[in-house]
Structures are given as C-alpha cells and as structure tokens.
C-alpha cells in the first residue's frame, strides 16, 4: 500500500483500500464464476451448500469468536427466516426479494428483543439458554397452525416462473446466496474493524474488565446477537425457497448449527477468513464422507471427533496454525 505514514497507515486507511477487502472480493468472485465455467450444476450445488455453511459460520463467529459466547442454537435464525419468507410468499403472495428482506429484518428484531433478555445470562448459562431457545422455537412452530404445524408449508413451484423458470431460478438463488455469503464476510470484517468490534473482543477476553472500562456489555452482546441473525435469516429464506417446502424438523435441524461450530473452530475462531477455509474444507470432507461406504452414516461422529481434537490440541484452528507458522500473515489475512 502506497502513501500515508508507515505503521499506522494500514490501520486507518479506508476499508476499501486494504488488501484484505480485495481478498474477500476474490473469494466471492471465485464462488460466482467457478460453476459458470462449463455450466457445472453439480459444482454449483456443492458450492451452494458451502456458501450456506460459510454464511452461518461467519455470522455465528460474531458471537463465538469475538464475544466468546457459544450459541448452540444459531439455526433458529435460519429456520425462522425460512418460515417467515415462505409464509409471506405463500398466501400473501409477496415477491422473493421483499420476503427475504422482511424475514431478515423481522428475525433480527426478534433476536434483539430476545437478546436483551437472555444475554443477561453469562457464560455457560447463555449457552444453555440457546439450546433451550432452539427446542422452544421448534416446539412452538410445530404447534403453530398458521404455519402448518408439524407438516409445514408447501409453495407452488409456479413461483419459480417469476425468476424465469425453474432452471434460471436455481441459478438466481445460487447467486443471491453467494451475495449473502459475501455480505456476511464484509459484515464480520466491518464489525471487527470498528469500536463495536473492539468492545466485543474485550468482552471475549474479560467481561468484568470490559464493563469496568465502560463497554456497555449487555447492549453490545444483544446488538451482536441481532446482527448475527440478519443474514442467516435471509439465507434461510433463499434455501427453503429453493426446495419450495419447509417443515420444523428441517428448519431447526441442530445438525446445521453444530456444523457451523465445527467450521468456525476448524478455520479459526475470531478470524474472518477462518470460516471460509473451515467451510470449504468441511464441505469437501462431508462430500467425501457421504460417498464413502464405511462413513456415510457417521457424518456427525466424524464432525464430533474433529471438533474434540481441535478443541484439545489446536484451539486456534487452521488460521491459528498459519499465523503461528508465518507471523507476517497476520497483517494480510484476518
């Protein structure tokens, strides 16, 4: 980078002029272009799942990596977003973009209200609360008749016509999901570079000390919880629109939130590019496991073993290892 005084320049430069901004842009471009070369539908489906994983992991990282609060129920945002979006597109007949934006805003607002309540709980109590949130929301939705109870909501596939037919619609959904993933990465980056992010990192280090130094801990945690709900809710809307069907067991499947945790820990908690590395490698591993004879039923077992090994022996994840190996990388890859 040219211009500015050495040392402080990188720190104070506009976010667009930092090399890391363009690294994120490269990742997004790679996702967008790769399946277009050769019109590879199989690659697109695999990358679509990876984009969902990265979106979930990257947003969960705001709570887990920055503030040190593990949210076992992050899938609630994804599922509720899916439900709101599918519901709005069904009988009221909203267009897709309006439905996902309202779903994102609605779930985010709900998370803020909820966060102000349960984020008064600290440490382990909060983690237990998040397990309960998922169970309670799932039980509520399963009994909520306007949303079809336990049998869920079906959408007419004619809705795909608005996006130019089923084939074209699948591509549009893919590009929208990649855009959501990109926004997630930039959101993580923007938060980490802000005073707000510094406050969250301080909470992660020592919540009492942060409070004494004037960080409004309860408010910051609730804001982080709410911010980390917005994009997963939109991703949920897109994901379930793709299958034109949603039911409680799919929408609140704890497998997804578990995998998001594994991805963060694998990539490196508190880093921005970590969830991308973790998401990519995890999706590769998952693909390999599903096709393997012996391991196809043991996907979560393997994920569990992987998580245990990382927690016990490599708590910094891949990024922690890379940063330890090549300390200069710290400046470029965050």
């Amino acid at each position, binding site marked *: 980078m040219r211009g500015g005084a050495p040392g402080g320049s990188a720190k104070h430069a506009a976010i667009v002029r930092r090399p890391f901004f363009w690294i994120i842009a490269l990742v997004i471009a790679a996702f967008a272009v790769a399946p277009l070369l050769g019109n590879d539908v199989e690659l697109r489906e695999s990358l679509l799942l990876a984009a969902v994983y990265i979106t979930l992991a990257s947003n969960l990282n705001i709570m887990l990596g920055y503030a040190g609060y593990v949210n076992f129920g992050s899938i609630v945002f994804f599922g509720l977003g899916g439900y709101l979006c599918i519901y709005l597109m069904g009988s009221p007949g909203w267009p897709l973009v309006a439905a996902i934006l309202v779903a994102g805003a609605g779930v985010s607002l709900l998370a803020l209200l909820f966060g102000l309540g349960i984020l008064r709980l600290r440490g382990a109590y909060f983690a237990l609360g998040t397990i309960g949130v998922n169970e309670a929301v799932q039980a509520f939705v399963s009994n909520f008749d306007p949303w079809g109870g336990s049998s869920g909501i079906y959408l007419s596939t004619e809705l795909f016509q608005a996006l130019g037919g089923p084939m074209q619609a699948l591509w549009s959904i893919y590009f929208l999901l990649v855009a959501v993933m990109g926004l997630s990465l930039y959101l993580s980056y923007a938060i980490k570079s802000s005073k707000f992010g510094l406050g969250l990192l301080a909470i992660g280090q020592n919540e009492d000390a942060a409070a004494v130094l004037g960080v409004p801990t309860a408010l910051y945690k609730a804001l982080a919880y709410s911010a980390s709900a917005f994009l997963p809710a939109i991703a949920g809307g897109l994901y379930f629109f793709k299958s034109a069907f949603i039911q409680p067991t799919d929408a609140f499947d704890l497998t997804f939130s578990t995998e998001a945790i594994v991805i963060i820990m694998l990539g490196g908690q508190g880093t921005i590019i970590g969830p991308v590395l973790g998401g990519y490698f995890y999706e590769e591993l998952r693909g390999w496991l599903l096709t393997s004879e012996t391991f196809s039923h043991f996907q979560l077992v393997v994920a569990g073993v992987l998580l245990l090994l990382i927690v*016990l022996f490599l708590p910094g994840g891949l990024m922690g290892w890379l940063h330890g190996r090549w300390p200069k990388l710290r400046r470029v890859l965050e």
Partner: protein
Amino acid sequence: MSGLFASIIDGVLVGSVYGLAAMGLTLIWGVTDVVNLTHGSAIVAGMFGLYLLTSTGVPPYATLPLILVGGFLVGLLLYWICVHRVIGRPPLMSLLSTFSVNLVLIGLGTAVWGTALFNVPVALPSVSWQRYTFPGTHILAAVLTAAIAGCLYVFLHRTRLGKAIRAVANNRGAAELVGIPTTQVLSLAFGLGVALAGVSGMLIATLFPFTLLSGDAYQLKSFVVIVLGGLGNPTGALLGGIALGLVEGLSTPFMPVSWTLVIEFVLFVIVLIAYPNGLLAPRRA
C-alpha cells in the same frame, strides 16, 4: 378435581427422578466448573443399559447397581478423554469438548439402534388409596431416588472423600494446598455425576418409553431443575426436580403434552433472569 390431585402426586413422584438426573449434572458443575453436555447421552446410556440387560434376563431393578458401577467407570473415562485438558480454561472450551463427545456418542448410538421407540415393560402392582391409583413403578422410582439421594448426602457430608469433594468445589487452590489430590477428586466427582445420570436414565426408562434422542429433552429438564434448585447444590436439585414435576403435573391436564417443553424453557429463562443463584439457593452471608 380428583384428576388434578392424582396428577400432582404423580408429578412429585416423577419429578424426584428428574431431580436425581439433575443431581449428577450439578455435582459435576459445582466441583469441576464444567457444564457436562454429555449428560443427555449418559441418561440415554442408562435407558439402553436397562433395555439391554433386561433383554438378557436380568430383573429390571437388579440392573441399578450394575448401571451405577458402569456409569462411574464410563464417567472416569470421559473425564480423562474430554475434560482433563480443558479444566481451568475458558468455559467455551469445556462446553465444546463435552458437546463434541456427545455428538460422537449419539451418532454411534443412532448408527446401531436407530431412532425407534423402545419400551421396557416392568410388571409391578399399582397402589390404590381411596379413589386414586398410582403405578407401582412411579412409587418405587421415587423411593429409590430418595434412597440414593440420602446415600449421596451421607457420602458428601460424613466421609473423608465426600468432604474432599466439597472442599474442591469450594476452592480448588486451597484444597490443593492442604494436600487434597485435586485431579483425582475431580475425576471422581465426574464419574459419580455420570453414574447418577445413568441411574436416573434407567429409572426414567421404567416409567416412559424412550428413543436414542430422548437425552436432549431430559438434559434440558436437568438444566431447568438446577436453575430452580441452585447451582452445585444436590439437595436443592432434588427439590427443584419435585418442583418441575409439579409444574408438569399441573400443566398436563390443561394443555397438549408437546407444549410442556416450551413452558419449561420459559420457566428456565425467567428464573435465570430473576434469581440468578437459583430459587431455592441458601442465603449466604
């Protein structure tokens, strides 16, 4: 009205078993500062212990001592696999390590047994009193729970080892300074906690049908009970369990069973926010 009375009494009987499960969890939490997320799979292991042992011909209640000992040994093993290295590290790490072991155990279990509903028939005569009839299994489960809770109380308060456990729970550093081998005590408490969870699972399996995934619901119930009874307080856990059983007994006549979990969870959050030290926690100066 008579239905309500019967369901209250039954709630107390069943609730005491929830209390036993929570005792295991709270013992581990209080002593090691680790929230044991393998608790649900320990409960399920107790249920399947009963199922497997009775299918080889062991009488149902004779499996109790076997499950107690087996659970203790498994608990020791779990301590050395996933807990020892994260003792004293941020709570995030112990949550994740026990969570990952839970994933592995449940994953292996579902691969072997699937998620079908299991039921162990236990033949015991019902007890009738005036117009009410109570299932014998519910009464015996409550009696056994009371006996085990009594033994635990005597162990923790009257024996040298029990006092060592309480000392470590109070202040690990100070306990180490006066010569208590804290690592052994930590692993012992963990083993004991898992054994209690296993036995409670076995007793629950004599009352209700179960699946491999039942553990999550009972784990959540245990957390609610702990919050009601106060953290690290086994006697409080028993009272908390009875309180939860009462809530269940009082709510079931009025609403569908599928709402029970929502009510319990709402209770959990409200109590946590209003009484962070537990509803029944002793007042400390």
